[in-house]
């Protein structure tokens, strides 16, 4: 099965997250053909591929919520497993819509997430700043069910971006966003990359890909 790297890998730091020959099958049904990818700190790997090619499955393998049928995923040499607290601390992921508390507002959610990671004083300020970066600070006292679908997506992005992480996995983060918000997202992700975070993004938007990618891998159907 061919895997084509559309852009040459740039020389740089050692990769932190490595998937080596990973595949996934359930009851003999192949979900992902064997593939090897890696990403280093301050770099962004973009995954492309048609619907059903296994991008989301690869994302689940990379964040350790499911186990590969073949191959191995490692984070700084350690097997990735979501049950491992070290892995949870390092990897943040937006793969499907996270369940929100229906009795908390947007700002409450971000304060809660921030506080539980023990980041100390300033949770309110950090939360408001993040909402402002995503241009949804005027929605801070809304409840999740009061948001439009695009605003929901920005809120979900804020939840994931609001927690500390060495590796950030985003599955089609551009979905339901308008052109301006997609550009804003690209700007934000480039900023995270410059801060040293390793990014893996499954993306169908050529402009966003152009803005953030250091490496592009096409995933072909199993």
């Amino acid at each position, binding site marked *: 099965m061919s895997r084509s790297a559309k852009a040459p890998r740039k020389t740089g730091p050692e990769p932190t997250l490595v998937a080596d020959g990973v595949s996934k099958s359930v009851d003999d049904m192949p979900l992902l053909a064997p593939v090897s990818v890696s990403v280093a700190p301050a770099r962004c790997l973009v995954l492309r591929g048609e619907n059903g090619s296994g991008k989301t499955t690869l994302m689940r393998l990379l*964040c350790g919520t499911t186990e590969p049928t073949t191959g191995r995923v490692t984070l700084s040499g350690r097997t990735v497993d979501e049950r491992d607290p070290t892995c949870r601390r390092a990897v943040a992921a937006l793969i*499907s819509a996270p369940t929100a508390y229906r*009795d908390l507002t947007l700002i409450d959610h971000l304060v809660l997430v921030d506080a*539980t990671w023990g980041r100390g004083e300033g949770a309110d300020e950090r939360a408001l700043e993040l909402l402002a970066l995503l241009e949804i600070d005027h929605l801070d006292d809304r409840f999740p069910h009061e948001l439009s679908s695009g605003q929901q997506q920005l809120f979900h992005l804020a939840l994931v971006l609001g*927690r500390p992480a060495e590796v950030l996995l985003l599955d089609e983060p551009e979905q339901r966003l308008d052109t301006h918000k997609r550009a804003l997202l690209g700007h934000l992700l480039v900023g995270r990359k410059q801060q040293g975070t390793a990014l893996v993004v499954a993306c169908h938007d050529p402009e966003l890909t152009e803005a953030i990618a250091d490496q592009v891998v096409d995933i072909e159907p199993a």
Partner: protein
Amino acid sequence: MSAAESLPEPLTGVPAEPVPDAATDRRRLAAARGVITGEQHQGEGNAVYVVYVAVIAAGAYGVPASQSLFRFLDPQWMADHLSGARGLVAGAVLVVALLALAVRAGAVRGPVVPELPYLDHVAASPLDRYVVLRRWWRLGLTGGLVGGLLTGLVVGAGLAIAQVTGPVVLLPAVALGLLVGLLVAGAWLHGQVHAAVTVDRGRHGGVHPLTGLGVFLRARPALRGLRLPALRAQAARSVTIGGGVLAGDLRAVRLEVASPTTRARRTRLRAHGPVLTLVSRDALGLRRAPGTLVTGLLLSGAAAYGLAHAATPGVPSVVALAALLVGYLGVGQWCEGLRMQGDNAGTPPLIGLSARTEAVGHLVVPTALYALTTLLVDGAALRQGGVSTLGVAWALVMVAPLLGGQLMAAFRGLPPAAVFAPGRGIGSTALWYAVPLLAPAVVGTAVTAMLTSTVLGAQAPLALVIGGYLLVTWGLRRVRLLTDAHRG
């Protein structure tokens, strides 16, 4: 063209009366139903059969069970506690609770909920909406009346056969049952109409003239006042709830049943360190859902009194059982945070705590509220001499089995495939769902029976501690299992 075609959809208030041409609409509706069902002459055969089965079941199982219960409850104890003004107050509270429940049920799924294709293709037509919808209301009303009548019959017959009262109780019991059934059916429709109006106008849109418990007397305009989107929403919700129950997806069911929160949005969650912020989250959630908080207080208060009272020798064990069931429901009102954690199990983490720490953190608010309620209610009862100090302590320690049940419920996950195996029937599914409720109820009742027995009384406190510990451990094991279940 039907005369009803020229009628505009009612925007506010009482819908306009259609020009009388109901006969034409009835003929058209019969033709439409003929196309849908493939039968030209539709009766209410299924409904009659259901009533027939209900009557048989009430006679064959209901009356024997009722008289056994009344014999078990001890007629003297019942006479002491449920006669005179106390009995009247207890009955009134029960009826009011039933009506409140019916109104709430109507807001989620009222009596008038045809299937979605019928709504889209028949109810959306110019036919008089009352004619189109009355079949469902009549079924709901009949269900209320038959249910009330049979309940009155079963309770009255049980009381008479157990010789708690004379046979003369049958007549008032049946009449009362019919009346309560009628009121419950009306409250059910009221809940549906009121919810539909609230969706249209908002919470502060004023009182709709078609709502109120007398709605069954004005069913015609009430049914005409139901808009198609509200009917569709309830029909879709009904399908989702049914599917969620069958698939074990209780989160979907909860989201459909729960009212969206909009209160106290300006009150913010403040960071106080990882676990304390989580505890503050649960407290804030309850502040934004005062109905849930109060319902929990009322149910837990009743449970705390029942448990303290059940610790008195001579009180039937069924009091402890009922108190534990009510207590489970009461404490469950305060466990939204725990349930949300269960819903999120297996997804990439957002909260920076281990699953076990997070679950234990979510138990802090329910534990504190239960303890506070118990101390207040049982403390007052203690001063009045209604319960003993041992009873108060007993009710307090019962928090362990109740919390174990909440952990098991929040992290029960999806039912195993074996539950749906051919031939297992609905009983196995119901049992699977009920385990988190039954486990604390059985353990709590058994240790309370031990406490009040002359032989095993001394061992009961140790048994309660061990039983509570085992249930909490079982619950925490469910936390770990569900959190790790996705990885395979």
